[in-house]
């Protein structure tokens, strides 16, 4: 690991603002989900059914709250990309940090940081579920969950970078709404818990991936959305049958949509990198 990669990653994992939004803000919503939004009415179902219900509940929480955590971290990524833009302009010219090396190492640090905060969210959800129900519910396919989280990280990295560079290109260093775009996207995706977008879900970045994470963590078939709409999920689980979503998500299409979004955002980002070359970055860097 090079020093730049190490320090960049360390910076992202120890930055107070990112820690607050990525951990404290997320913890609040995890606690709300497990203690306030999760209601058990009537007599408890048999233990194996109850565990299955908790597994699905945990999967939904770690996926959609993980998106909030990742969106918050992506805002931090945009902010650091923005603040370090002058340093990068100088370093790629007058130090050993060539543009290619910078892009590769910055990308790696960004994706690892996003995944790390998402995994912290997974741990919080598992721990909170255990604290309330006394059952440890781990994801069904942990490796697949991590792989999908990494894809989320890639997508959000390029989104945050495109956002930071767009602000520089526009010469508008303080556009809070634009900077918050990754979190808005996560919140928009959160709405798909109740709203089934059908095939339109493939047009929404992140949403198909979140559904795949739910599926990988719980073992249920992925849906195009509307997980909590009309109670189909809980009714099936309570009866002890595998839930069948009204509209099933196609995993290949979901991955193709994610790849298309990531490539498009990377292309925008790299184009903007060239466009903002030489912009008066020092006007924007925090003093």
């Amino acid at each position: 690991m090079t020093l730049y990669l190490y320090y960049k990653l360390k910076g992202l994992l120890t930055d107070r603002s990112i820690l607050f939004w990525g951990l404290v803000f997320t913890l609040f919503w995890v606690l709300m989900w497990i203690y306030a939004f999760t209601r058990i009415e009537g007599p408890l179902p048999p233990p194996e059914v109850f565990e299955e219900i908790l597994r699905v509940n945990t999967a939904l929480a770690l996926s959609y709250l993980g998106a909030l955590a990742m969106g918050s971290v992506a805002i931090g990524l945009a902010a650091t990309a923005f603040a370090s833009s002058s340093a990068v302009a100088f370093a790629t010219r007058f130090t050993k940090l060539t543009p290619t090396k910078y892009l590769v190492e910055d990308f790696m640090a960004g994706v690892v940081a996003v995944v790390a905060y998402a995994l912290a969210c997974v741990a919080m959800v598992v721990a909170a579920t255990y604290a309330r129900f006394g059952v440890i519910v781990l994801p069904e396919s942990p490796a697949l969950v991590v792989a999908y989280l990494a894809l989320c990280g890639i997508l959000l990295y390029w989104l945050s970078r495109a956002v930071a560079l767009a602000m520089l290109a526009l010469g508008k260093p303080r556009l809070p709404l634009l900077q918050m775009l990754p979190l808005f996207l996560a919140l928009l995706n959160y709405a798909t818990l109740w709203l089934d977008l059908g095939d339109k879900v493939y047009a929404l970045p992140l949403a198909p991936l979140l559904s795949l994470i739910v599926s990988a963590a719980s073992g249920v078939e992925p849906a195009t959305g509307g997980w909590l709409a009309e109670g189909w999920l809980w009714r099936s689980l309570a009866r002890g049958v595998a839930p069948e979503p009204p509209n099933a998500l196609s995993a290949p299409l979901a991955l193709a949509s994610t790849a298309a979004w990531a490539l498009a955002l990377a292309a925008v980002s790299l184009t903007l990198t060239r466009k903002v070359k030489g912009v008066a970055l020092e006007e924007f860097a925090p003093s």
Partner: protein
Amino acid sequence: MNAYSLELRVSSGFITMPTRGISMITVENLRVKLGGSEVLRGIDAAFRGKHVVLGPNGSGKTTLFRAISGLVPYRGRIEIDGHPLGRLKGAVKVLATNIAEVYQLAPVKALELLNLFSDLSDADPVRALALLEELGVGEELLAKRRLWELSAGTRKAFTTALALAVNAKNVLLDEPFEQLDPAKKVKLASELEKYSGVVVMNTHETWVLEALPDWEVHLAFEGRLYGPIPARKLENAAIVEGWRDDALLTIETRAGRFSLVEGEGGRALTELLTLDRVYELLTSASVRGSLRGGRR
């Protein structure tokens, strides 16, 4: 001068481009617009050896350094050691600067930034820390705070020490004496005297004329550069209003025209302490009389 190799990064990969050359920075018809107003208005200069850019606040001194460092869009030509600025990539030890933003590569503690930048630019971290110690900045403080959490004076000392520790062929120092006490100013001035490469420093303080008499001085006013003139000559120069045939320099400002002359009359330049006072002298009726000696 010794020949040296300058490593350039081009699209096809690394190439080593042997260049016979002398360390120098040249700018031709350099123009910079920021926020709609022209901050640099056609600057021509060749910096070889030791130079001071002396000018009041807002004269474009820092913008000039930022343009040379590749941080602002510009029109005109900038060359470092004979190579256009736009073509320089991965050019280690060619240019160093103490402009703070250049060091904000990652949101980590200042000491970690020092290690990171030393690694990336082949700087000597021990030398940087030794110089910082002399300037009153301890390693312990740097290990605790991030760059933007340091006071302005400490931040300036940090970036200046790091810029010098790179031992680059060309160094740009933006107000390096800012917020240093007199003893530390003398220490830093002696470090700058010893430096073997090109040093271009800017300041608005006139005491440097006496401290660095062998340096070449450019005066910066309202986006234009005048000179160079040896500091030794300016040390005894006076400011007179208007122009004179024997003037070392005649400078046009929005507040009026003034000349720097040797000999009788006017107000001694070093007496001003800071060039910001020129405007006060030119516009205030009560002190304007002290500038008599030139023709309007």
